[in-house]
Each structure stands twice: as C-alpha cells, then as structure tokens.
C-alpha cells in the first residue's frame, strides 16, 4: 500500500522486536484500506519468533487484541496456545522487511520456501494457515510496510 497513506502515533518509537512494536503495528494495520476489506474475518492466534524472542499475536475479527511476549511454555501455561508459529533469525526478518527486499526474501511465500537460506519456518496447523492465507499473508507483508514508515520517522 502507498506508504504516505499511513499515519503514525507521535508518542514513542518502539523497536523491533517488542510487544510495543507489534501493538503499534496492529493499530496501523487496522487502518489499512485493504485490511478493512480482506481482514475482517481474520480470527487467529499465532506466534512470531525472532531469534528466539517469541510474541503471541491474537487477532479477533481482524483486530489485533493482544500481544504477549515470551510467554512461559508448558502444560500448566496452556492459556497461551497458538495455532501456528512463524520462526526466523532476526537477520531474516530484517531482510524480509527491507523496503525493497532481496530476491527470496521479498514475500511471505518466498521467504518460507524450503530453498531460501535461513528462511522462515512455518509450523503448526497448516489448515488454519491456508484457510486464512490471504489475510495472513497481508498481515505479514504489512510488517514491512509498517517497518519502513516507522523507521523513517525521527525518534
């Protein structure tokens, strides 16, 4: 989407990755015109792993309602269950979120392909992934959109 159409909050500039960053990202995503069309049925909880830094994102009807960072894992902590996880080293996330990414890192499907060096790994309930593929892909691509507007702003 055209970057100039996205407006940011002035108050702070959280860094990636952090719960605050994902919350700000979720706010901007909710204002994205395309998301308003294709994201309204997106109800899903998934985990984003950045070099071991884990964030659980919960979407309800297209709205990011909760971000939890580095939750405890185990049977006694099952309230924080997720349906699938997207894992990659920080360097891979950075390449993916570049304004013009290099080939093989330029789209969610490309960077999750098995042939991509240090690519993203998607694991978990693949049916949920495919049932939400259009909205999920857009949400992932919007990480790049948000990152590039966000990073251009002065601290």
């Amino acid at each position, binding site marked *: 989407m055209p970057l100039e159409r996205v407006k940011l909050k002035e108050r702070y500039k959280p860094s990636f990755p952090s719960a605050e960053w994902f919350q700000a990202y979720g706010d901007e995503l909710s204002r994205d015109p395309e998301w308003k069309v294709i994201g309204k049925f997106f109800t899903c909880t998934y985990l984003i792993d950045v070099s071991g830094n884990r964030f659980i994102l919960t979407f309800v009807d297209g709205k990011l309602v909760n971000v939890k960072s580095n939750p405890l894992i185990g049977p006694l902590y099952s309230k924080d269950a997720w349906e699938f996880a997207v894992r990659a080293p920080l360097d891979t996330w950075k390449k993916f979120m570049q304004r*013009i*990414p290099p*080939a*093989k890192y*330029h*789209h*969610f*499907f*490309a960077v999750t*392909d098995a*042939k*991509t060096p240090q690519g993203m790994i998607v694991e978990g309930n*693949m*049916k949920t992934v*495919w*049932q939400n*593929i*259009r909205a999920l*892909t857009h949400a992932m691509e919007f990480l790049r959109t948000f990152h590039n507007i966000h990073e251009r702003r002065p601290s």
Partner: protein
Amino acid sequence: MAEVEPITGRYIHLRIDNSDYRVYFEESGQGIPVICGHTAGSDSRQWRHVLCDEYLQKNFRLIAFDLPGHGKSFPKDGWWMEEYRLRRDFYVKVILALAKGLKLTRPVFMGCSMGGNICPHLAILYPGFFRALIAVEASDYSGQVEGAKKGEDYSYDWFYHPHVHGGDASATSIYSLMAPQSPEKFKRETWWCYSQSAPGIFRGDLLFWGEEHDVRESASSIDTAKTLFYVFNGEYDWSTPPEHGKRLVSRIKGAKHVVMKNVGHFPMSENPEEFKKYLHPVMDEILAKSKQ
C-alpha cells in the same frame, strides 16, 4: 472515442484422444507465428501486453491460447468424472493440434512456467517442428520429482481442499513470485486471473510442472540447429530462479540464457515494459535467422 485493442479472439475445435475440444485463442499481428502458452492455473490473458506490442505485431502473428479447462476453453465432456491432472503427452498434443489446425508454418512457441517447461519436451518429441522455443521461467526439473520419490510431504492439495478457498489460495501464493519492482496494478491483475481458475486446475497443472516434468536425461538430445532454444528467468522468481534455468541451458548445446533483473515469475504480465527489453532482442534474432 473508445479504444479497441488489436486482439481478436476465436474458437477452434481440436480432436485429441477421441475427444472434441473447443479451444479459445486470440491473436494480433502478422508474420512468423508465435504461440504463447500460459502458466499453470491461469490463461491467455497473461499475454495481453505482448499481443498489444506494436513492435512485435509488425513481423509476428502472436497467438495466445487457453489450454482445455482454462480461461475460455472448456474441459472435455465428462470432466466431472475425473480428477484433473495435466499430462505431458496431452499438453504436447494440444499445442501440436493447435499449430496444425491453424496451419502454422514452423511456428515459435513461447511459454511461461509450465509453458516454459513444456518447451524442451516439444523440442525432443518434435525436432525441427518449431523454428524457436522460448522457455520463460523454465528449468530442467523442479526438485519435487525427487522429493516425491523420497516420500517428502510436499503437496499441492491445499490448492484444492474443501475447507480452503482455492481462488484466494492460488492467487495469494503466486503473488509472491512477482518482483517488488513490478507495477502493483499488473501484479494485481495477475493475481486476479489466478483467483478465477476453476477448482482443481492449478493443482492439476502443478502435477505436470512439479512432478512429471524432468528432462535431466533427455535435454542433451535437443538440436538447436533445427530449433533455436532460449531460456528466460526472472531474478525474483523463487520457484524457478535463474540458477534452475541455467541448469537447463547447460544441458542443451547452443541454448541461450536470459536473466531478467527486477522481474519475477510472470514477466509478461507483471512488468511488460521490462519484459520487452529482454524479449525484443531475442525476437529480432529469430526474425533475422528466419530470413537467412
């Protein structure tokens, strides 16, 4: 005043394997015939920019067709009783039947993705029939062949699953194959065409593209003295990157490799202006050699 493009569409009936197929094709230009083959799960609309290319229209009769079950070509009668799977032999028969049905003299065949992968098969099975083959986004094999033999859990079934929106799934997956530099409008148009593919068609085509297609042992038999052979690959095409096309070229003596910068898997539809920069010199070469 309303603009009318120089493309005219018609239907031809082809008899293949005892079945009648009503095949749609559209064309423009005049001169050396060029049959344009679409990608898996899509249709002839992908070639609209090439067919509207005034430079090419001067010396080439540009023909884009819809494989049965794609675009405006219906599948054969009784299609509902079979699981769709594109077979190499059938694919070749359609192309040859079209060329012979239209009485084309030593045509060029230019195909993309599965259309590119069929090119070496055309050269191997019908040496000299085509004056040139332009294999866009092609490889010698996709890798899934060996994966399938090893029992790897690689499946195209998600593109044809009752709980998954096949149009969304197919279109969203292929959008990733296009370069970030390509115009958004044309990338979305490519997405749009895929979203309209009939149920099971993309999956069935991929079974040829990913599993059946394998010319590692046979490509060396292609004689480029009889049929010119070109392989094009876009740098952002993660499914058939330039290194895969280079493998195919290395197996065919006299074949030429064209690597396209800032372009992905659908150069003719995602960034037609960029594609023309690479296509025109090749077409000029074909034209020049035809005059010798």
